[in-house]
């Protein structure tokens, strides 16, 4: 079995005002998985993410990357931050430069990449994400969707192993949100490990392979989306709802229409199982 890429053991973090943001969180993330941390507002999702590239140091517990406990001296952190990229929830906090080109190139040059090589890679990533026409535009005139893309580009260009997106679809319209998630899917197919946080149950259910349900700084449930979302009482405690796909499937099962063994993961699967129910014509 492959060792975990990232493992957090029994993390606890308390803010100055006494808020227990994390209270004994343990998580193990395998290589090349699509994982989601699900939880209501204030569950501790963003705080947890800040631990994963050493921006916060836990008051208790340990974070391991590739089996090694994190070291918090400058050099080790630089190396870690090359491997673990975070796309922050609010792109305005991440874009520090008024120029798109400058902002995307920032992390790359910090890695010690030569300017000529950096320019090539920045252009490549811009082309890949379809934002090369924004390069000479100032970041403060961009739309939220465009800003989010630039923020993602600034992280992707560093070619991290693990890409963490805090609330990737927050503030995006449905079209842009779908586009963004497809991009993340593409990265996963290229072998990257993806971790997102969200309170969108439908998104987590359909997109992720593994889900952790976080509430009040504690992991309330973990496992495959079907496993986690079948735990009605845990969902209720976190004030989250059952994904609509699962709800319909459960309702059909209750009515004795049990369409399939396993709940559908997406609309196509649901449609297929409904078609199977149709009495044979003639």
């Amino acid at each position, binding site marked *: 079995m492959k060792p975990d890429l990232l493992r957090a053991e029994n993390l606890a973090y308390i803010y100055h005002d006494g808020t227990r943001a994390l209270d004994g969180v343990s998580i193990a993330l395998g290589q090349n998985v699509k994982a989601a941390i699900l939880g209501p507002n204030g569950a501790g999702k963003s705080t947890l993410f800040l631990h994963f590239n050493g921006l916060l140091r836990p008051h208790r517990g340990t974070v391991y990357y590739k089996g090694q406990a994190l070291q918090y001296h400058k050099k080790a952190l*630089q190396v870690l931050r090359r491997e673990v990229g975070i796309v*922050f929830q609010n792109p305005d906090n991440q874009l520090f430069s008024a120029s798109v080109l400058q902002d995307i190139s920032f992390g790359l040059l910090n890695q010690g990449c030569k300017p000529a090589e950096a320019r090539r890679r920045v252009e490549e990533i811009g082309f890949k994400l379809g934002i090369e026409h924004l390069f000479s535009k100032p970041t403060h005139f961009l739309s939220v969707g465009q800003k989010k893309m630039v923020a993602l580009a600034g992280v992707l260009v560093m070619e991290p192993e693990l890409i963490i997106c805090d609330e990737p679809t927050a503030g995006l319209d449905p079209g842009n949100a779908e586009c963004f998630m497809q991009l993340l899917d593409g990265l996963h197919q290229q072998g990257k490990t993806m971790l997102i946080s969200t309170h969108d149950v439908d998104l987590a259910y359909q997109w992720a392979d593994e889900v952790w349900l976080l509430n009040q700084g504690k992991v309330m449930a973990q496992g495959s989306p079907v496993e986690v979302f079948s735990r009605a009482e845990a969902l209720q405690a976190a004030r989250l709802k059952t994904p609509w796909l699962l709800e319909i499937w459960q309702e059909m099962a209750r009515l004795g229409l049990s369409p399939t063994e396993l709940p559908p993961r997406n609309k196509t699967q649901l449609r297929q199982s409904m078609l199977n129910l149709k009495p044979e014509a003639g």
Partner: protein
Amino acid sequence: MNSIDQTAYNSPWYSLHPAVKLGLTIALLAAVLVLDSRIVSAVVIVAVFALLVGIARVSWRLYMGLMTVPLLFLLVGCAAVAISSSPSASGIWPGVYIGGMWWGVSFQSLQEALNLFCRSLACVSAMYLLALTTPVVQLVYALRLFRLPGIVADLMGLIYLHIGIFLKTARDIYIAQQARCGYQGFAGHLHSLTALLGNLFIKNLARSNACYDALLARGFKGSLQVLDEQYTVKPLHLALSSLFIAGLVLISSFGGRI
């Protein structure tokens, strides 16, 4: 601020090498100040107007609007310079006698005021030539080329971006307050304004912390290393700029002080 910024980004001169634009501006300022000739100043004022409105496609409405503020300021300031006093009434017009002195406008003080007015307005024009064609990002880049210390350049860039964020935050708070009946009456005004200023500070502090975290997450090591767009210096631009300055010198030597 936004209209200047937007004009600069959409300027047909956007792609000109920032150092040439900055260099021309500095040379113009130097010419106006050193040559100290009203005709040179007048030529600069008219030429900059013609360049910006005619060639760089700045709307003349915007330009006039931008000129109004310094113009008003200059008129008031120069009026004060034009007024002088003298113990005798000769050469002073209209000659009002107050406190043992004759007050009014003399030929010399008028000359001085006019000189000051022309030079100042010419300098303002030269600065607008830069501001309306050169976004701040380019300006910082050019200043770096002109050996501005890196930390100052970094700060300029950050401050520029954060002024925008700062104004937006202030506007958001202001709207939120108004939506809930803030700014009613004198006391209400003071109360709302205090709350706005205090929270603006706190919000921006929180935001700076978040921004700093995001920088660290991408391996920030104390200086903002970034790639800049590539610009090329066109010999034509250099030649035209030099010609412009040479023309000014020529005018001042022939025209002298009119």
